[in-house]
């Protein structure tokens, strides 16, 4: 099956600076793909090129098998976009802003769609308020409602839950998953690793304009082999720290709590060694690596 979004050798240069460096990826219909990377990695530039707001220096973008040179109107009528950092018209009411967007996308049942997503994102009571009077969280919800109005085939989301209260952020994630069930394809740029792990089928990790990793969130997290062993010490704290340092494990001490970072294959070795040294602890927990650990690892490597 042909991918719904296919990017080949996409490059964007601004003078000497290479914002996006020869990236290629594709997204299948109904997939939710996370676009991760540190600030300035090239995520937003990639999204802007996918929206034809920035012209690529080279490379090819195919959306639903079409390209922007020939079918800009058709493509954009089936994509929508939302970002926490983009404003709608401040003087218009929420309803007028949404109505304007339905006109731009040629939505036939505009009023029904506005009512529907007004309810979904809990903004129906804000319809009469002018945009500039809204809080940051309310603006984000309006921007999200706007992104769903035309029932897009592809949805591009840039930090969709930044500035939202946890309960509303959860509601948004549920709506993203529900939209996937309806067949929508989503590209999600986010710094919220837990969110990406929760909703994304696959992650593209971008750094310095290049895709440095592409896999499921679970597999990427596994690439970080260090696990954290947390011990609440009863006896032998000094012996534990001395052993960990001697063995070359990263160690953090906070009051009676000791955290030791070890390769997952060394957990048994660590625990046996502590038993031999007659160390006593009242609690033990082991944190598996997360996508956030992978993010930190790759970001550190990128800065070197």
């Amino acid at each position, binding site marked *: 099956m042909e991918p719904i979004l296919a990017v080949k050798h996409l490059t*964007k240069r*601004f003078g000497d600076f290479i*914002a996006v460096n020869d990236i290629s990826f594709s997204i299948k219909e109904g997939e939710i793909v996370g676009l991760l990377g540190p600030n300035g990695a090239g995520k*937003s*530039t990639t999204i*802007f090129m996918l*929206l*034809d*707001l*920035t*012209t690529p220096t080279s490379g090819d973008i195919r959306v639903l098998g079409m390209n922007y040179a020939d079918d*800009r*109107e*058709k493509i*954009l*009528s089936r*994509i*929508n*976009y939302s*970002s926490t950092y*983009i*404003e*709608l*018209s*401040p*003087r*218009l009411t929420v309803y*007028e802003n949404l*109505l*304007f*967007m339905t*006109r*731009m*996308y*040629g939505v036939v049942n505009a009023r029904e769609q506005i009512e529907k997503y007004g309810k979904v994102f809990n903004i129906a009571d804000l319809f009469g308020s*002018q945009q500039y009077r809204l809080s940051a969280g309310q603006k984000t919800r309006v921007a999200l409602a*706007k992104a769903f109005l035309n029932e897009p085939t592809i949805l591009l989301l840039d930090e969709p839950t930044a500035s939202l209260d946890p309960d509303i952020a959860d509601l948004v994630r549920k709506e993203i998953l529900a939209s996937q069930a309806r067949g929508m394809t989503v590209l999600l740029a986010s710094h919220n690793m837990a969110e990406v792990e929760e909703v994304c089928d696959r992650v593209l990790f971008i750094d310095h304009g290049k895709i440095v990793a592409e896999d499921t969130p679970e597999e990427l997290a596994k690439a970080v082999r260090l696990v954290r062993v947390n011990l609440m010490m009863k006896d032998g704290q000094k012996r534990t720290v001395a052993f960990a340092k001697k063995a070359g494990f990263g160690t953090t001490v906070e009051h009676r709590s000791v955290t030791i970072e070890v390769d997952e294959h060394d957990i048994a070795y660590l625990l046996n060694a502590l038993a031999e040294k007659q160390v006593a602890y009242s609690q033990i927990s082991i944190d598996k690596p997360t996508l956030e650990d992978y993010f930190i690892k790759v970001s550190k490597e990128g800065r070197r």
Partner: protein
Amino acid sequence: MNWGRVLGVIEKYMHESRRDIFRVFDVIWWPVFQLFVWGLFSAYLQQVSPNTPNIASVLLGAIMLWSFFDRASRDVSIIVVVEMWNRNLINIFATPLKLSEYLMGIMVVAITKLMVSALFLVFLASVLYAFRIESIGWYFIPATVGLTMLGWSISLITQSCLLRFGQSVEVFIWAAATLVQPFSCVFYPVSSLPPWGKMIAMTLPSTYLFENMRGVMNGQPVDMTGLGISFGLNVLYFLLALWIFYQAFAGAKVRGALVKQS
């Protein structure tokens, strides 16, 4: 051209204009201010030069036509720069909206504001200074159309500069029309200009329109050759300005300026 989208653009800016008291103020305040000052000045000139017939009417006619040009050169640019201030260009151009539809929409809004402003001005001039619009006759229509067209050409160039150099050059929105004013011979005949000034004046469509207006108000027939040259130049400049604007927009997308300025 998708007229549904054009209508959406018109509706949006009509709502915005209605809401923003400063924009309403802008439609009324400047024309009234200019009319008031120039009206008083014309009345004074009529008093000190009673042997110069029609001087007050000619000056008032000039200021009214000038306000068409002045507003046309600013209104469209202001809409665009306000969208830049509001960081809303991304939302607008991430939709299927075409540049031509956007321009069409904001020009219709600009014409509407222009009409409101002009009607108010004509009404005020007739009440305060007994100015009669009939003294310009049918010539009023081609004159206003021509001046609006030139104003839009200048506006497109201003917007191109905004897209190219960013909001630091937004001062040109207000200054562009005044740069053309001395050579357009709004308040004096072309013969008053020095030879080099006349050469510049002859390249401006506005010069022919204001020259013709004075003739008409002094009872002469419309100089059709001058009117024809004016329209020819207007069409040429408008097409050129449109081309420059499209190039500037495409350039902004290449430089990433469209999203940075939003």
